[in-house]
């Protein structure tokens, strides 16, 4: 691999590492989400420095030019991160759904209590046996 592109790759990976660490330090990024970023940056940095490993990987995957293997690995990490965010987003939207439902139920309860209307019996605590069937 040419030295110039190696330098560019190393600088980019180091910059990414530093930015992620700085964001974590300022509490703008939770450690939970930073870990995957740090891991990808470290792997890319390692491959950029350690030429032989990169050449080996390129050969294994049938990639003629070693820098392309680096890009391939980087793209793989990007896809992984995006998937990770989709999963995180699903979790958040599910959590916010539950939150909205609970909030609405509580709000209704508060309104009912404030209005002094008769409260529905919490029958979950006192199960009523069927007394008679008028059919």
């Amino acid at each position, binding site marked *: 691999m040419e030295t110039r592109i190696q330098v560019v790759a190393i600088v980019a990976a180091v910059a990414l590492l530093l930015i992620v660490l700085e964001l974590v330090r300022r509490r703008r990024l939770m450690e*939970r989400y930073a870990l995957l970023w740090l891991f990808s940056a470290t792997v890319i940095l390692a491959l950029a420095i350690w030429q032989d490993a990169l050449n080996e990987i390129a050969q294994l995957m049938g990639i003629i030019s070693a820098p392309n293997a680096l890009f391939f690995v980087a793209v793989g990490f990007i896809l992984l991160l995006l998937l*990770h965010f989709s*999963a*995180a987003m*699903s*979790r958040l*939207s*599910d*959590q916010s*759904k*539950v939150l*909205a*439902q*609970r*909030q*609405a*139920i509580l*709000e*209704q309860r508060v309104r*009912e209590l404030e209005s002094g209307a008769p409260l*529905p*019996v*919490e*029958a*979950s*605590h006192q*199960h*009523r046996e*069927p*007394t*008679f*069937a*008028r*059919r």
Partner: protein
Amino acid sequence: MLVRYAAVGRSRAVRRRNFRTRHTSYRPVHRYPYLKCLAVVPAYNEQASIARVIGTIREHAPGFDVLVVDDGSTDATHERAEATGARVLRLPYNLGIGGAVQAGFTYALEHGYDRMAQVDGDGQHDPHQLDRLMATMAADPSIDVVCGSRFLTHDYRYPAPISRRTGIHIFAFILSRIMRQRVSDPTSGFRLYNANAIALFARDYPHDYPEVEAVLMVHHHRLRMVEVPVRMFVRNGGVSSISSGKSAYYMVKVLLALFVGLARRRPVPEPGDIAPVAAEQGI
């Protein structure tokens, strides 16, 4: 002149009496006083029809408490609903029909309801027929879900565009194969649930376009569902949640949910398990 009026009046009275006698099977009384019943009315911007829907439920299904779930409407839906004296859950933002109905399930579970019915706020479901759903469930205690189907009657054609009906029939075909039971209208939201089904769906209910997936969940949890023929009206007011542009998305999304749902060995965690997504800590 006077005589003619009297004659007209009498004939009207006779006609009305005949109408009543032809409908003796239906009496607007609560026949199941030992059951706590809740009618959940999910409504999103339904100010035009919500009061009438509540009124019809009160009139035709007097045993049901009415709970309107205002799904983040931007119009006067909740004011109109509260004016009728119904209980209203106001969701802070639009969750979609699945989230709104699940709020109803949670409410029903926490207030110990024995039966919960879903009656859409747009007026397309006929509360008149809640009685029929109740009777079906009362006739067989092993039934957990009674679903009102538009396609079991031949005297009434549901006036939906052909594309939508085709979609419904595709889902119906797939579900019928999976469940080894005829399912004619899996997209119908007009359903009655017993306490088992309420507990299941309060725990986990599909997000958007939930009806078809809910049928699959019923099957996976070995609950029993039957269909009864019902009439449905064309919606009168508001905008359907499924516009024509969205129906392709609807088809694909529900099909994905169906086939992925099939691959889930344990679709929903039992009490004590890790929550599916919501409370999970990872990622």
